[in-house]
């Protein structure tokens, strides 16, 4: 238990300092991007949030399958914690995207495939928590939530590929661009490295929030268990 506490503390301070220094780096050191100018800087919040959202719901997907397979309550606690954090990051994606869209596209929102499927992801996982809240039996809750968590994750490959499959206002991928079989992010290194750094920091922040929420979740379940036992 002691080591877990230590890890959480390290992650906490690591992400605080990391986010702070990435912010300073982006605003004070980075060159201004040629075509978009200053608004491009929101990319350093938007893209790391996207990748964190992808990872958070992937964790939900994996632990939901694990729960249905092994019926270990711990797996459901992790899935729930990750879904919660993922939902916050998904909201951040939608908000930063809207703020970025206004000065560049000329609109906060359009119903194109990329934006619509991202909103759908947000709504699916809002539904995921409504489902959890509406079921009183803990095992039943875990079972149903696992199924929805698995289905909900399937939206992510659709989101990611939407800009290739369909005509969208949103531009194709910059970071995951592949040119004749080779990974070729279409941005110069002085813009790319800070983006990778911000992403790493954001993932550390996610891990911190995940572990914190998981611990709370574990204690809540234990408490409810003890209360149920004493009432009998």
């Amino acid at each position, binding site marked *: 238990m002691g080591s877990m506490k230590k890890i959480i503390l390290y992650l906490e301070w690591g992400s605080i300092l990391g986010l702070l220094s990435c912010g300073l780096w982006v605003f004070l050191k980075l060159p201004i*991007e040629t075509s978009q100018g200053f608004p491009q800087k929101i990319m350093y919040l938007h893209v790391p949030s996207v990748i964190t959202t992808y990872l958070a719901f992937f964790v939900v997907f994996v632990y939901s399958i694990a729960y249905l397979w092994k019926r270990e309550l711990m797996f459901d606690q992790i899935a729930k914690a990750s879904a919660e954090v993922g939902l916050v990051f998904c909201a951040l994606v939608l908000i930063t995207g809207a703020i970025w869209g206004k000065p*560049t596209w000329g609109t906060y929102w*359009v*119903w194109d495939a990329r934006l619509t499927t991202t909103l759908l992801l947000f709504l699916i996982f809002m539904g995921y928590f409504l489902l959890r809240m509406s079921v009183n039996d803990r095992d039943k809750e875990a079972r149903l939530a696992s199924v929805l968590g698995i289905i909900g994750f399937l939206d992510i490959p659709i989101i990611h590929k939407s800009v290739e499959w369909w005509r969208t206002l949103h*531009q194709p*991928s910059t970071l995951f661009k592949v040119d004749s079989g080779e990974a070729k992010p279409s941005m*110069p290194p002085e813009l790319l490295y800070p983006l990778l750094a911000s992403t790493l920091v954001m993932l550390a922040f996610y891990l911190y929030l995940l572990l914190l929420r998981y611990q709370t979740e574990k204690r809540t379940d234990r408490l409810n268990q003890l209360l149920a036992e004493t009432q009998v």
Partner: protein
Amino acid sequence: MKTRTKFVIGGAVILAVIIALSVQGLQEMTVFFYTPQEVLASPSKFEDKTIRIGALVQKGSVEWNAKAIQLSFNITEDGNEFIPVLYDGVKPDLFREGQGVVVEGKMKGLRFEANQLLVKHSEEYTVETEQKKNKEDYYKSIQAQ
């Protein structure tokens, strides 16, 4: 009729409506805009219907009327076929020649009257040093047409 049968019928109707609406919505969503070629190929299909067209702003075609707050330009995909666009409104910050745009409005004869002008920027990010090279590439590509 049994209550259960009613539920089944009601559920089926709701489900059918949901599916019909999502299929329709999905079609609209997957084709966020048409290309100039598609519109020019069957003008009667698009006449007087609110549509979106996505293309590039043709070089040398932009005219800005500051008094009337009116912007006119041609959009093209291949440099051969183009549609003249008239837009009532101010120029967006990122609007420039050669830029990808999505216009929303109606075809009036051969001209497109837009009430919304969106800029579709590319996934390429550059800083000052690369700007010159890209500009040169762009002029070369225009001359090659």
